[in-house]
């Protein structure tokens, strides 16, 4: 499939001298959902701000549908919808007026049937005459999505769509995103939640300190990220790992008197049950157990080490 978005050697140095993006390269296929995963300050907003026209790049290019976002900005921007990270709406405007305004900015005539279908899809139709300041936070965010969709973009950017949103709303947002994908919209969203990337993305790009460390199919990445650790604290210290347990991926931490077992959370068999059986067979008595998912930070460390 042809790339609808192509980013080449993109860098951004802000006026203060801060290097927010370092030589980013990225191709996105039409119709996919790509999650840009990275901690706060990684450069996610900077990257999509350049593509959408909010920030000027220092060097490199970005093309949408073959149009350069700087040189052919009119054609490029016509294809793009942006839902910004921060909620920013004219408080006294009604939802319907807000949509009409945006559609007009994109040079398109009012299309009541289309705006109605967008509002219905986002469960906002009954709020069409409400002033935006009268809406709840979740509704405001949906108004922003509706605004981003009302000129029928082919690529939609969602900047942290679920940051600070409760679980219920997050699920709802994911449903909206899936629905949009079915309608054929290409979606790029940023997030700092692994679970979010896991839940809705087809591919995941991992970004840190302005560098795009990798872009991979979600399944591949999740296997890498799916490492879990089981810590088993023992009543008595061990001299080393007993022979009978040699075939497990075990480490012994003498300081805390604990055995650390690493396993694939997504694997068919985790091996935990047989490990416990073998521990008791070997006469080892447990005091406490704890499991831990590798954190985003662990994964970054892993990725950086892998690259080195």
């Amino acid at each position, binding site marked *: 499939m042809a790339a609808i978005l192509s980013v080449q050697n993109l860098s951004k140095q802000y006026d203060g001298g801060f290097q927010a993006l370092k030589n980013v390269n990225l191709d996105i296929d039409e119709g996919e959902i790509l999650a840009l995963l990275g901690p706060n300050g990684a450069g996610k907003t900077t990257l999509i701000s350049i593509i959408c026209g*909010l920030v000027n790049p220092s060097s490199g290019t970005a093309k949408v549908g073959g149009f350069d976002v700087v040189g052919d900005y009119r054609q490029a921007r016509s294809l793009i919808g942006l839902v910004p990270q921060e909620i920013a709406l*004219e408080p006294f405007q009604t939802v319907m007026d807000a949509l009409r305004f945006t559609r007009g900015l994109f040079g398109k005539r009012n299309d009541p049937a289309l705006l109605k279908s967008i509002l219905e899809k986002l469960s906002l139709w009954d709020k069409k005459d409400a002033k935006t300041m009268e809406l709840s936070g979740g509704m405001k965010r949906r108004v922003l999505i509706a605004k981003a969709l009302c000129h029928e973009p082919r690529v939609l950017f969602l900047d942290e769509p679920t940051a600070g949103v409760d679980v219920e709303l997050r699920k709802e947002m994911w449903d909206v995103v899936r629905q949009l994908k079915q309608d054929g919209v290409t979606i790029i969203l940023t997030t700092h939640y692994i679970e979010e990337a896991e839940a809705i993305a087809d591919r995941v790009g991992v970004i840190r300190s302005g560098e795009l460390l990798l872009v991979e199919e979600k399944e591949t990445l999740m296997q890498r990220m799916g490492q879990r650790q089981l810590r088993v604290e023992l009543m008595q210290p061990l001299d080393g790992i007993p022979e009978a347990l040699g075939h497990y991926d075990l480490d012994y931490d003498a300081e805390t008197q604990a055995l650390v077992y690493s396993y694939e959370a997504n694997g068919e068999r985790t091996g935990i049950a047989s490990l416990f059986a073998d521990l008791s067979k070997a006469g080892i008595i447990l005091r406490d157990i704890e499991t831990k998912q590798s954190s985003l930070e662990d994964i970054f460390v892993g990725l950086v080490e892998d690259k080195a």
Partner: protein
Amino acid sequence: MNFQAVRSIYSFEMARFFRTLSQSLISPVLSTSLYFIVFGAAIGSRIDEIDGVSYGAFIVPGLIMLSVLTQSISNASFGIYFPKFLGSIYELHTAPVSFIEIVLGYVGAAATKSALIGLVILGTAEFFVDFEILHWGAMLAFLALTCISFSLFGFIIGVWSKNFEQLQMVPLLVITPLVFLGGSFYSISMLPPFWQTVTLFNPVVYLISGFRWAFYGTADINIGISLMMIAVFMLICLAIIGWTFKTGYKIKT
């Protein structure tokens, strides 16, 4: 050219004006009425005619200019500053619009609003004083030129302002004194020669003088020079806007 976008911005801005119509109109109309009562009726009855025009009628053009200038600046500066303040300006940057379309939309709307206010004040003045307008065409042209150039000026202030204080500083500290000292309430020829010369550095003098010529056919300054000065002012504003656009100063990072 994305005319639909210009229309969208223009009608959105006009909608804000009509939504707060009473506010938008009452305050300029009220303050102008007070001027007419105090200066026109109370004090004016004791002042001689100036160039054959009664004092009450003499101050009409100046009072209209006073409102039109301040309204143009505050409407245009607020129009572009408010989305910046709210953050909703992201829409202008991500839409397929150029700076020219943005300027046309915001400045066009601000100029329309202040022209409407100017005409309403003109109508209000009819209640207080008798006057005839000699050159209707010139009067409307002067009004339009003033509204457009000072809306451009206001737009620049709105783009450059970092907070609400800066937004209000220029109209308050610069425009009001210039208008008061620009011959709204007196003829330049009434000043001692030294102050007459100083006054010539005040751009508002040319506006008011020209505007008054359109009303009564008499002016402190040649009408051609007045027109030239306002054209120069407009060109300067356009040049600053063009430069702002080119460098992206204060608009984009």
